């Protein structure tokens, strides 16, 4: 049976105050054997804490050879990630795979 990958919908405001809840959500999926989708469409504000959390999530999934799919596009998300020099995901399109990298 084919099931849809679970989707993590990032809220409009994804800041450190929302991180505890977001972490709980991501923690349940960090070892999920199938692909996990992260939808950034709604994001209007995201801070370094949330980006760091997403970055750590992606990094761990990559280390486990698991797939994370980025879904939607958000200028705020892109701008915030660029501002702190983190490449968290790839918001080019729904089917693109995570490019969880950093410039170091």
């Amino acid at each position, binding site marked *: 049976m084919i099931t849809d990958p679970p989707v993590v919908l990032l809220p409009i405001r994804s800041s450190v105050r929302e*991180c505890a809840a977001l972490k709980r959500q991501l923690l349940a999926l960090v070892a999920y054997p199938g692909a996990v989708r992260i939808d950034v469409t709604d994001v209007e504000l995201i801070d370094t804490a949330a980006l760091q959390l997403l*970055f750590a999530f992606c*990094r761990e999934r990559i280390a486990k050879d698991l797939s994370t799919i980025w879904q939607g596009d958000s200028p705020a998300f892109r701008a915030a990630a660029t501002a702190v020099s983190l490449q968290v995901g790839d918001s080019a399109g729904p089917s693109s795979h995570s490019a969880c990298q950093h410039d170091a």
Partner: protein
Amino acid sequence: MTLEMDQFHSGFFEEAFESLDAMETALLQLDPGAPNAEAINSIFRVAHSIKGGSGMFSFTEVASFTHTLETLLDELRAGRMPVTRPTIDLLLKSTDVLRGMLQATQRKSPVDQQTVADIQFDLEQMLAKRPSAADTAAAVQVASAPTNTSLSSAKPESLRPKQMTWTIEFRPTARLPEPGADPSRVFCELAELGTMALVAHADKLPAFADLDPEVCYLTWTITLTTELTSEAIQNILNWAEADCQLRAEEPASSRPDPAPIASNPPPPPSPPPATNLTPTGDAGGNSAKAATADSNSIRVATEKLDELMNTVGEIVIAQSMLMQLVDGAEPPPVDRIRAGLIHLERNVRELQESVMRVRMLPIRSAFSRFPRLVHDLSARLNKQIELKMTGEQTELDKKVLEKIGDPLVHLVRNSIDHGIELPETRIAAGKSAVGTLFLNAYQLGGSIVIEVGDDGAGLNLERILSKARAKGLVGPNDFLSDEAVANLIFQPGFSTTEVTTELSGRGVGMDVVRRNIEELGGTVELRTEVGKGSSVVITLPLTLAIVDGLSVAVGGEVYIVPLVAIIASLQFKRGVARQLAGVGEVLLFRGDYIPIIRLHDAFNLEPRCHDLDLGSVMVVECDGRKVGLFVDELLGQQQVVVKSMETNYRRIEGVSGATILGDGSVALILDIPGLVRYAAERNAA
């Protein structure tokens, strides 16, 4: 270097830092319209003694810089130059530079040559503007020549800042919810100074499960090419809650050529300007001052040491008396031994109190940064603010004093930024154009009270309440007292971005301030009146080294509950506890249902009793939230000496420290704020 020389150096630095603090205070009190001659004299004497001491120890760079500073001060005290606002500002900058030079020299690290050269250039330019400048300028050059680092004003263009490439290692230190802690803000501001490249490093990032979302594990290397000086960069970094290492990588060809000085060998190539910055977020030189205050040494008044010596003498006498009693008569005189032991016990208690007094320092050292902070911030915000400080002699344990600095800075900044209105607004409201910011400290029983307040706009309670309702923090029909509404600003949900400025924006970091105070075992209370101002009252324990606690038994273990947190101890009647959906086990206490934490569950122990009516419940309070702690048995009240878990083992959630009991066993001291948070998170989960 010999031990003796190290001791001399240590004494010199200690005195120099204290003198600089005094110099800064005197400068801030100088009135440009009617300068006080004695104040100028005292400032001059500080520069003169630092120059003499640094010359004696061959700290030539410090001696050279101080010489220029002293020359300017000599002109001022002789009345040959007027005391103007720009002069005072330059002298304040000079104290910052001098403090930085002394710190670098003390740490045996390189001095930030560029910053020194910039300020020295400004000092010399100011000197050059005075009457008969030519003669004096020549004297300055000759006098400063032996150091080879002094830069003459003969070729001022060589000193002007050129394009430099700065590398900044940026490591955030604050927890991310703290206002202004998000590194991206600093990066944006730095990017405006020139061309910036940013590289993030994730090597400190833990496994996802272990990641604390409020901690920034990422670090950055910033490469900034700019014409601006290190001071301009520092001004931005000072606002960041981060450890920053700033170093210059100036191309050799663009380095300023130090001006040759007649009859002196050419200066050696300048070492790359480097400085270790550990900003605390203060304006001006306060970061450096904070570092000084957080030192490992302590200056003790002779009478305190005499008192200590006397008590130790008494103990030695009591001990030898007891030895004689035990070694002498057969059978030993039990009554006299008992009396001797009581005497010894009294002496030991006195010894403990004397040692505690040795650790006590006047709060002046924490307050001393504020005149400068108020001076700098009020100028930046175009506000007129008078700072009134009282109770600076009030003594507080050194450890508490070191930790109280940052919360006080937050409160003072909030008052300046959001509490006190602009002069025109104040005048329109029928107030004086000059706002008042007050800091007051006094002892109240076994606690120290610190008040930080202003006569500004006060909190707009209506708007706070509507904001809280909009955010769902308060139900639409819930009635809250004014005090409860004001206390909403301590909720983490309130932040600058969400609370408008007219509301006074006091949500900024207030949750962090309260958390920091509570970690010190203290409490925070807010008082406010619309249009008349606000004040925050902090109550702190005199010391962190000893805690009054209640020992309780849980399973085979003993825990200490700090008395300050306990509201009541209860024996349960069967059926008083309830199970509430989403909250778990609760207890009806004074009309409210409060969650119960079974300590054996929290610490994975096998309890002696599971039934609530067989054990005891202590109601504790933190952050305005009450929790019932279920334990097997209450053992008794006692004073315990706190040992750090982090130093001796590692941090444990729910535990703030440990102590050794009379029987030699170890008891853990409960971290009440941590347990209250644990209850809240358990309920939210």
